[in-house]
């Protein structure tokens, strides 16, 4: 950290990424190595780990103790819940969602991947692509994480053989491409020995690509917004009602996607009323144009009825509203989701009553086979659902927008978050990419 200057830090961007890996693939070691070699672990943290490792009778400091924050995790030596880590290099700042690898914690991988722009999938070079690897790739595809890194770990245990790496990379890339993952970068590493994590490996001179950290530092973090549908979910109506501002009425929200300009014709959904943007305040400063993911306050030219839960969109690019939502979901609660279940659906800033009309299929992640009409989804199940909502919703396809194409289901009786939903076609049958300049992915 000592090499970072104030000037260098002020210009950096933020990358959110997630890790996925099975229990013994060395995920904690990779995370520990990334933090350690990028000098993001400070002396007192390392001392605490050394103390705790020694008191457990371990000879070397167990870097997993850096990340396992709960008593139960340390006792069992496993990661139970998502933890968020923060580190920085002079080029970029990182938020790492460190997610557990156990099958029964699929929901936590979904949680981590939902905000990630990149996922690192770890495999053991000795085992190659296994069922759990396919599960991780499927979840990355399902959540439409724009970038996937395949880290082929433990290269030290296969003699740093290029052929081993090449065959795993080929198999994984073919599988991920079939799922619709837009970009796979495969990197041969040894997290334990430090090869190609932060520093380039001298033992794999046949590899000419970036190290894990170099790739994280340079991967693009936002796409050309000209292709995105502009969407502003209204969070809150700002009305000062003061002597100086008796008539100020601003619609506050974080732009979910696209760009808004002063003067633009807009439609308020679901009512369908139209107006024109008279002004945009960017946290107190007037601006002419604002874009995702800025938090703004929009002023309209006409006195139309707008409240929390509404969606402001360009009149020329408004989504259809519907009361019948079809989606791929991951069930995240312990109590099952069944046909006929009455739930609340939160989409953007709107929460409406809804009923589960049908569960057409349940997905088996290991082989991507579909189990028809299971009738119920248990914890960590992924399936297709049809939901009828009490009010019309302006939903986009998740393929178009991770923000306005996603929703959660909530149990109305106790507030439990039941299910994560992604609107639109099944992920296993992605629409073909036609425009060479537009990869059709948005986040």
């Amino acid at each position, binding site marked *: *950290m000592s090499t970072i200057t*104030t000037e260098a830090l*002020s210009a950096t961007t933020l990358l959110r990424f997630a890790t996925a890996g099975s229990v013994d693939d060395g995920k904690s070691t990779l995370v520990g190595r990334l933090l350690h070699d990028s000098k993001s672990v400070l*002396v007192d943290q390392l001392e605490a780990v050394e103390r705790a490792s020694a008191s457990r009778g371990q000879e070397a400091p167990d870097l997993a103790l850096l990340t396992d*924050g709960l008593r139960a995790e340390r006792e069992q030596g496993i990661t139970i819940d998502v933890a968020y880590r923060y580190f920085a290099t002079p080029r970029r700042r990182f938020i790492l969602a460190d997610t557990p690898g156990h099958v029964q914690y699929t929901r936590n991988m979904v949680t981590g991947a*939902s905000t990630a722009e990149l996922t690192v999938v770890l495999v053991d070079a000795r085992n190659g692509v296994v069922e759990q690897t396919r599960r991780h790739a499927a979840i990355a595809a399902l959540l439409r994480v724009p970038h996937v890194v395949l880290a082929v770990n433990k290269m030290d245990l296969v003699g740093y053989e290029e052929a081993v790496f090449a065959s795993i990379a080929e198999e994984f890339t073919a599988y991920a491409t079939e799922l619709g993952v*837009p970009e796979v970068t495969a990197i041969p590493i040894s997290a334990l020995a430090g090869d190609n994590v932060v520093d380039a490996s001298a033992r794999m001179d046949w590899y000419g690509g970036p190290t894990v950290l170099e790739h994280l530092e340079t991967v693009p973090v936002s796409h050309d917004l000209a292709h995105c549908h502009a969407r502003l979910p209204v969070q809150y109506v700002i009305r000062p009602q003061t002597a100086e501002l008796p008539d100020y009425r601003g619609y506050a929200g*974080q732009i979910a996607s696209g760009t808004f300009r002063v003067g633009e014709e807009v439609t308020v959904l679901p009512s369908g009323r139209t107006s024109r943007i008279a002004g945009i305040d960017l946290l107190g400063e007037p601006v002419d144009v604002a874009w995702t993911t800025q938090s703004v306050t929009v002023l309209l030219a006409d006195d139309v009825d707008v409240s929390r839960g509404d969606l402001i969109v360009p009149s020329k690019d408004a989504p259809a509203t519907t009361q019948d939502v079809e989606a791929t979901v991951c069930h995240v609660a312990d109590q099952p989701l069944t046909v006929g279940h009455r739930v609340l659906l939160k989409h953007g*800033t709107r929460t409406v009553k809804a009923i589960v009309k049908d569960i057409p299929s349940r997905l088996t992640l290991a082989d991507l086979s579909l189990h028809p009409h299971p009738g119920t989804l248990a914890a960590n199940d992924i399936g297709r659902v049809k939901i009828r909502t009490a009010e019309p919703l302006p939903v986009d396809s998740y393929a178009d927008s991770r923000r306005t194409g996603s929703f959660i289901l909530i149990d109305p009786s106790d*507030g439990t978050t039941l299910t994560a939903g992604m609107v639109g076609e099944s992920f296993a049958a992605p629409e073909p990419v036609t425009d060479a300049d537009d990869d059709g992915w948005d986040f």
Partner: protein
Amino acid sequence: MTTVAKVTGDGEGTDSPYALSHLDALESEAVHIFREVAGEFENPVILFSGGKDSIVMLHLALKAFAPAAVPFALLHVDTGHNFPEVLEYRDRVVAAHGLRLHVASVQDYIDRGVLKERPDGTRNPLQTLPLTEKIQSERFDAVFGGGRRDEEKARAKERVFSLRDEFSQWDPRRQRPELWNLYNGRHAPGEHVRVFPLSNWTELDVWQYIAREGIELPEIYFAHEREVFSRSGMWLTAGEWGGPKETEPVQTRLVRYRTVGDMSCTGAVDSDATTLEAVITEIAASRLTERGATRADDKLSEAAMEDRKREGYF
């Protein structure tokens, strides 16, 4: 040998004029969280200690609702061992923005015999009861805290919206998954939600933001001469709370504080950083975390923070 299924435009995103800087992204996310709470809860309150994190929280809240007033009151848990400079700052800020301030007083609980002074004199763990009783008696349903996940490994597991039961307890194994930016604020009567808008900020982010926004801080954050004594490897300020002992000689040193908490357990660090820029340079070069350097209470055990959070601590 990099295997690439489909190459996206080179450098398209990183240099895009639409890419937000990391501070803008964090600011926008925090503002979104404030507005979600304003839209979904009846009676939220901001925990305000006069420390830098709560000061940044208040600044973000002011921006989130501008040009209207912040629709929340403030709540200060007064340990009775506060730095006078911080109390003075607190009252000045409250007056300047026309805010309403609630105070939960640890001294009050000690005077009434409800809480007992600990042998080590630290009052940090004693804050939990006055805090949780105030939340119940005022019926606050959302309580903003300045906690950051980078502070401590138990906090790294904390959700942005963190449900607390009627005893204000945190159960890390029964947390709601938090997906996309769809925060779930549902709670039963008597329960409340702790909300952490600075979850994704680091200490350095907070300082850089303070510098960028020109936010005023209590003077104790900058290097000054102070009478201190050494205990458990930290420089503590002498005071009525129980220091120094006879074996702890007092000396005058040039110091500043990295965190502001109870005087009995918040240590100063040697520093000659008198400006924001100097502070940022110092922190960027520091090899110690904020809590490791200056908080005695977190050194009590490996799970000290987790255990306190379970009981309702912020």
